[in-house]
Every structure is written in structure tokens, then in C-alpha cells.
């Protein structure tokens, strides 16, 4: 079922419910591998907590999750809310350490964040005291301190142009709309030339029209840059439009991978015509079924 040269597979024997049957075609090296990642948040059981009767059990957010992602693949992770998607992304980013398991990039274990992974945050995470130019410049200067100033300036302008923000260089984030802020976030993440781009629900805070526009932008930019991307999302349409592979997670606690789907549609993709592709509706229905089942279980567990 699992071949060593499959572009993308779920390795772990416990979790591997299904691997998508597809593309075993060309050999692609694994760029990002998660090996049996578990994330447990310790409950309260100190002496004081026990005396006051406020102990709580450990919470297992992610249980024994393994995943391999090959270079230049766009992967979306989708799942019901509270399933630990963002935790997983933060683990990949190195911002939090998993309780057990390891993250490997090009075969090497990583334990801390590094500029080989660029992050696009849901809340944009722009520095309010820096202009658009300065926000991107800060990233470039931090990652490439030895780059000549002229070149730094050139790189910053290049990525401002890429996301279509020319003319807004001197504006501060509070003068920008949400969509423009996230475009700065995208430019900042790309300007450091990361190997892997991590996006944590990057369009979650935007209105539907802006979201669609930025999805198209991401599709356009991805066509140019072809980075490895891990996108956390809630949106089925967004996942199908952008991804090569879609990882569907089960609900938490002890979230794991339920299923990995291939998105076979040729690129560049057009939002307007994508639903006319053969298999689109089937794919979408499959995802909707899974997500509504998991979401129902989450909601029922809350009662």
C-alpha cells in the first residue's frame, strides 16, 4: 500500500487509514517529514491543585501523527475546529516542541524555528511601528545580514511588486486593509526565500471577496515560485483550488490523519472553471462528508 517513492504518504501503521491511490509517478525526495508526532498538554496535578481539587487530566492534542511531504508540493491540512491543525503547523515551524516525535527537513531533525521555513500568520503579525517596506526589510535584513544594502532594497521592492503593493511602501499596517496586510505577510514570508512556506489559516480573518482574491494571488505566486507549501485551512474550496494534496484530520483529542486526497486538476487553475473539472464534485462531496461527520462528533462531544 505504501511505496517508498510515493510522492506523499502517511507512513505510520496506526494512522494510515487510507493513502490516496494516485501519483506514484516520478521520484521526489521527501522534504518535510513528521515522524510519530504527539502533543500532550499536561494537566494540572501540582500539590496545590490537588489540595484545592482543581486537577485536570492531560490533554492529548495530537497522537502519533506521521506525514511526508515532497518538495514543491502544495499541501493543505483541513479538519474540524480544535483538531490541532494550528498546533501541528507550529510544530513544523519549530515554534513549539512536540511532546514526542520529530520533524525532519531534508532528512535533518529540527528543533527550533529557522528561516528555511517562512510563516504566514492568520493575524498577519505585522509590526505596527514598521512601514510595509520596513516590515519586509526587517525579515530580509535578519535572514541575510551580509547582503549588500542595495541588494536588500532590491529584494524588498521585488516582493512588494510581486504581491502588488507598489505605492504602499511607506504606509503603516494600520493604514492598510486586512487583505493588504496579509499581502505584506505573504511578501515578508517569501522575501527570505524559504524552502517551505507555512500558512496558518491565512485568509481566515478576511471577507469572502478578499479571500477569493488572495487565493487567486497565492495560486498565481505559487505558479511562479513553486515552493513546498503547508496550508492550514477550514475551507474546502480553498483546499481544492490551491493544493496538490489534501490531508484531512480527525477531530481532537488525539487528532490524527484520517485520509489524504490527491487533487489531480491541472494548473494553473481558475476558480471560475474549476468546478467543471471531472471529479471536482466527487472530491468536494467526499471532503464535506468527512468534515461534517467530524464536526458533528465535535459538537456532540461538547454537550
Amino acid at each position, binding site marked *: 500500500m505504501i511505496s517508498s517513492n510515493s510522492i506523499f504518504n502517511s507512513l505510520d501503521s496506526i494512522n494510515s487509514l487510507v493513502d490516496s491511490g494516485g501519483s506514484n509517478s516520478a521520484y521526489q525526495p521527501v522534504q518535510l517529514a513528521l515522524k510519530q508526532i504527539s502533543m500532550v498538554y499536561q494537566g494540572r496535578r501540582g500539590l496545590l491543585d490537588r489540595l484545592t481539587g482543581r486537577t485536570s487530566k492531560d490533554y492529548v492534542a495530537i497522537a502519533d501523527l506521521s506525514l511526508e511531504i515532497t518538495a514543491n508540493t502544495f499541501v493543505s491540512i483541513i479538519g474540524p475546529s480544535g483538531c490541532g491543525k494550528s498546533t501541528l503547523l507550529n510544530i513544523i*515551524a*519549530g*515554534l513549539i516542541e512536540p511532546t514526542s516525535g520529530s520533524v525532519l527537513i531534508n532528512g535533518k531533525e529540527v528543533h*527550533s*524555528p*529557522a*528561516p528555511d*521555513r*517562512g*510563516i504566514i*500568520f492568520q*493575524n498577519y*503579525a505585522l*509590526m*505596527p*511601528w*514598521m512601514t510595509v517596506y520596513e516590515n519586509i526589510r*526587517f*525579515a530580509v535584513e*535578519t*535572514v541575510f545580514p551580509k547582503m549588500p544594502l542595495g541588494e536588500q532594497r532590491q529584494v524588498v521592492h521585488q516582493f512588494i511588486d510581486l504581491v502588488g503593493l507598489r505605492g504602499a511602501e511607506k504606509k*503603516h*499596517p*494600520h*493604514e492598510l486593509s486586512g487583505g493588504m496586510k496579509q499581502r505584506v505577510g505573504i511578501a515578508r514570508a517569501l522575501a*527570505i526565500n524559504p524552502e517551505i512556506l507555512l500558512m496558518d489559516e491565512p485568509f481566515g480573518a478576511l471577507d469572502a471577496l478578499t479571500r477569493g482574491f488572495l487565493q487567486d494571488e497565492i495560486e498565481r505566486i505559487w505558479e511562479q515560485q513553486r515552493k513546498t507549501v503547508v496550508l492550514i485551512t477550514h475551507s474546502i474550496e480553498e483546499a481544492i483550488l490551491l493544493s496538490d494534496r489534501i490531508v484531512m484530520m480527525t477531530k481532537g483529542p488525539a487528532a490524527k490523519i484520517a485520509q489524504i486526497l490527491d487533487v489531480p486538476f491541472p494548473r494553473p487553475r481558475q476558480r471560475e472553471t474549476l468546478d467543471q473539472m471531472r471529479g471536482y464534485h466527487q472530491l468536494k462531496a467526499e471532503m464535506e462528508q468527512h468534515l461534517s461527520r467530524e464536526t458533528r462528533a465535535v459538537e456532540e462531544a461538547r454537550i
Partner: protein
Amino acid sequence: MTIQATTSKKGILAKIDKNLLATILSLLLLALIFSIWELGVNNQIFSPLMPSATQTAQDFWKWVSNPFYENGNNDKGIGWHLLVSLRRVLIGFSIGAAIAIPLGIVIGLSEVLSKAIDPYIQLLKPVSPLAWLPIGLGLLKDSESTALFVIAITSLFPTLINTKFGVANVDRTYLDVARSLGASRWRTIQKIILPAAAPSIVAGLRISIGIAWLVIVAAEILVGGTGVGYFIWNEWNNLSITSIITAIILVGMVGLILDRLFGLLQYWVSFGRQV
């Protein structure tokens, strides 16, 4: 159509700008206070010491129209006294800030240090800065430096506490950005933590200068020599209530200006964040 109808029903009051209305009310209130004051003095309801409003206004104008005269050491214009007090506050405040900001940054960055120093801050914070005055006199043996010492102590705590708070509570995502880029500790402090904490630090400075300006009057009453506090005490000895009222109004105005200046600074470092 309906909108027009409703506005016309509301009458004249609704059409007047709210700010204008407030100004008119404010002036009416002033007139009311002045009339009660004037009538009270004329009908000898108040103590005979109390000057009438018109006398006070005349004396106020006398002081304000010639603030910088000098007839020997004991008879100077009120402008000089205000300048002396202002100078003391600014020097004392600068000393306080020069200690409080670096110390606040250090303890804001280190949880251990913060916990170690916090008991002292909590203990000393509620003490009136004037309680330090005798210690200042004992240590420094000089009234001028004692005044600066008291103002420095006054300015210390609000700035210290706010700086610590601002530095310790920098938005996690800013720090995540710095970490994900591999920024050094020093670069993170310089480029992220300090600008992120700046509104908080300036808020502390604003509180500090406000309290310093409050305390200087009392400190100068006790220490004597020069300054607006000394002026007030001196005029009390002369039983010149009009001069004291003049001083109160001018001290208030200077305090207001100081506060507004720091308010501007706060706005200037906030970049759209909530002030």
C-alpha cells in the same frame, strides 16, 4: 423625506454642534461660580480673608501680565517660580526615567528578576514620595538636590511598572516572527520588544510627570527657597489669597500642557494601536 421631518421636530438644540453646546455650558458654569463667589464675599458669608472674584481677576492679570520681573531675591515674578519648579521636575523626572526605563526593561525580560524585585516595588509604590524628603536631606544635605531626589523617586515607580509590563507583555506573534526569522536576542529586543513596549513606557512617563508636577508643589513648600510651591507658601504668609489662586490656576495650566505633550508622544509611538 422622513429623515427631514424628524430632524426638524427635534428643534434648535439638536442642530447645534455638541462641542459648541459644551463650551457654552462650560462658560455658564464659570459665570455661576464667579457670581456665587462675588456675592458670597460682598455679603460677607465667607471668611474676611477671602478676596472677591474681581480682586482675584485683577491680581491674576497683574501676575500674568508681568511674569518675569525681579525686585531682589524675595520678590520675583511668578514666571520665574514656575520655571524653577519646571526645571526641577524635568531634571528629577529625567533621573527617575533614566533609572526606571532600563531597570524596567531588564526585569520585564527576566521572569526571575521580576519576581525577585517585585516585593520591593510593591512595598515602596504606595509610599508618598514626600516621606523620602527627610532621607534626601540627610543623605544630600542640600535642599536643591533633595527636591530633585524626591521628584526622581516620584517618577520612578509608574515608569518602572509600566515599562516592565510593556516589555513582559509584548504580543506573542511579534516574538514568533522574530524567532522564525532567527533574529538574535539583541536584535529582537532592539527592533521588536522596545518599539512594541513603547506605548506602555510612554504611558508610564505620562503618569510619572503628572505625579511629579503634583509633588513638586508640596516638596517646595517643605524645602523652601524658590519655586511655585515656595511662592504659594510665601503668599500664604503674606495672606495674599489672590496670589495663591493665581498660582493654582497657573500650576494647573502647566500640568495640563505637560500631560498633553506626553499624550502626543504616546500617540506618536502607538501607530494605530489603542492608547
